[in-house]
């Protein structure tokens, strides 16, 4: 199978869906000729024109609001939010308008829009361009949240998102845009709410979202050398969350570490860990461990920034401790 970059995968998904459905359009800052700073949308304007690949002023709430109205009246907009950090700017449009329209109208209105943005630190961009804010939107009923972990997921989840009848927020890891993965040439979709078991194991379940999947896979390799068998699961979407796959795995391994790049406090790791603790409690042989980003604004200096995110080494070390049965009251 051919390998393409995550960036190409997203581009292909958007192009295929725009060809399939003329109500699909792309809107955001510098999405047309510039193809975004990450060059994800390059070439789309040549095929679809400026009428459907729309460059906007720097006005995130404004163009997000436009997308809500367009979606409510029959179009399927894809909003390009250049950095995940700008979510704070668009919260009213996303959370008060898009997320609630279907419910508040008793099912009369719906908002089939996609907001694609990114997450991920260690790009030396400091605190306002490095956040992973998916937990923030996952908290709001009415929104779906997808977190592709490779080019393959990026394409399959994007196509599903565009066809979904609800507002979907997709978080791509901005450090993975150039990472290649095998992606089939033929059309495929990845359904929401179906986790992917990347590695089967016996001793501990590592649940990793987005690029933390690769962190977990690397940790699992290190653990295997020490005779510890780790199961690695990528939830792929956190709303809806494939709880059944995660619980089944934890019931088998009796230990779990949840790894995610959002802040640890009140975060995605906390939510998944809580569900495991509630629903698989009597199968747990060790505390469920959360490993999120440190609860500090992301620092600029590489010497500091690298300390803030989970690494394979940290995950493997933590897995060692819980498999060994250390008394863990705090990590």
């Amino acid at each position, binding site marked *: 199978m051919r390998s393409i970059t995550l960036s190409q995968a997203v581009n292909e998904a958007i192009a295929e869906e725009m060809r399939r459905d*003329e*109500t699909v*359009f792309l809107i955001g800052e510098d999405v047309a000729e510039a193809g975004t700073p990450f060059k994800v949308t390059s070439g789309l304007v040549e095929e679809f024109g400026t*009428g*459907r690949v729309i460059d*906007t*002023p720097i*006005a995130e*709430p*404004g*163009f*997000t*609001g*436009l*997308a*809500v*109205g*367009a*979606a*409510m*009246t*029959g*179009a399927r*907009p894809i909003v390009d939010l250049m950095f995940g950090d700008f979510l704070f700017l668009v919260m*009213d*449009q996303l959370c*008060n*308008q898009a997320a609630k*329209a*279907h*419910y*508040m*109208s*008793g*099912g*009369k*209105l*719906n908002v089939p829009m996609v907001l694609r943005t990114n997450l991920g630190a260690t790009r030396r961009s400091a605190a306002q361009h490095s956040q992973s804010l998916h937990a923030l939107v996952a908290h709001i*009923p*009415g929104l*779906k949240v997808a977190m592709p972990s490779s080019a393959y997921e990026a394409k399959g989840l994007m196509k599903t998102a565009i*066809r979904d*009848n*609800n507002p979907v927020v997709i978080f791509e890891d901005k450090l993975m845009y150039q990472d290649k993965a095998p992606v089939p040439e033929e059309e495929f979709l990845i359904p929401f709410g179906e986790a992917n078991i990347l590695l089967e194991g016996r001793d501990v379940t590592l649940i990793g979202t987005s690029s933390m999947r690769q962190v977990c896979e690397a940790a699992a390799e290190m653990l295997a050398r020490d005779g510890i068998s780790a199961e690695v699961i990528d939830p792929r979407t956190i709303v809806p969350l494939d709880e059944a796959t995660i619980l089944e795995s934890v019931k088998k391994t009796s230990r779990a570490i949840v790894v995610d790049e959002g802040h640890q406090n009140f975060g995605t790791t906390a939510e998944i860990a809580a569900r495991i603790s509630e629903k698989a409690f009597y199968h747990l042989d060790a505390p469920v461990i959360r490993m999120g980003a440190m609860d500090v604004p992301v620092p600029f200096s590489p010497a500091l920034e690298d300390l803030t995110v989970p690494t394979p080494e940290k995950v493997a070390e933590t897995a060692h401790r819980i498999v060994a049965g250390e008394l863990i009251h705090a990590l």
Partner: protein
Amino acid sequence: MTAEPKQNAENYLRMYRQMVKIRTFEDNANQLYLDAKMPGLTHMYSGEEAVAVGICEALEVTDKITSTHRGHGHCVAKGAAFKEMFCELLGKEEGYCRGKGGSMHIADQLNGNLGANAIVGGSMGIATGSALRAKMLGQSDVTVCFFGDGATAQGLMYEVMNMAALWKLPVIYACENNGYSEYTRTDEIAAGEITARADAFGIESFRVDGQDVLAVNALTRDLVGRCRKGDGPFFVELETYRYHGHHVGDISRTYYRSKEEEADWKANRDPITLFADWLVNEGVATKAELEALSEAIRAEAAEAVAYALEAPYPDGSEVSMHVYLEAS
């Protein structure tokens, strides 16, 4: 007021009826609230009827509007029925939103009402996006964005007017200037002229007497026609007045406006009285005919209120319905 009365008698009487319907709806809603039969929070449109009716009578069913927290008038003017509206106000199953939206969120998409919005200025993006969709998909409908003078302080308005002007979108920004931003006089919260905001983007703007339904209607007809030809967007400031407080419970309001001022508007600038006088003077209808029309509407409202009071609440199982739309 200027027009050709006899030829358009039917249209005029419909406008009159719509204005009376709004006033009657609000009188009943106000009473339901004061009688503690209506839960929540509600904002009366009384006094502003000529704005909603003058504008919506210039629109087709396929044209869209976005509405505000003070939205009952827009909803009625765009064609909604009393029964479903009262049911919604009371949180009943048969309400427009199955009781999930209430007074501040009534949506009636079949008549092109994309919903009231309880975030001041929150619907400006939606209205502009609706217009973007129309232009992109080659559809001829026009969207009217209702908002108040208070919403002109929100940043979103400037972002979306900028884009609407850049892309010549078929949207009309209808600023209902009722003189008060919640409990504060508009001149204390808005620097400069309201219309100057649109002028800055090169959007053609108008100021019109919002108590004169024919003036509002004539202007809107013209602007809707121009929007359909691709000349949008437009901005209209409608000078009007709200008879009640910011919300129903806002009773003691002399600290921000005088009782004399309220009495003066009601006595001399009431949109329904003014239009009734005109209809009688022009020989379109007699006083008795107009009174009979009002009486019929009052009876219709009373029946709808009685129906809504008896109507069932939604089943508890509905609480988790409509969070997501799953079928395509």
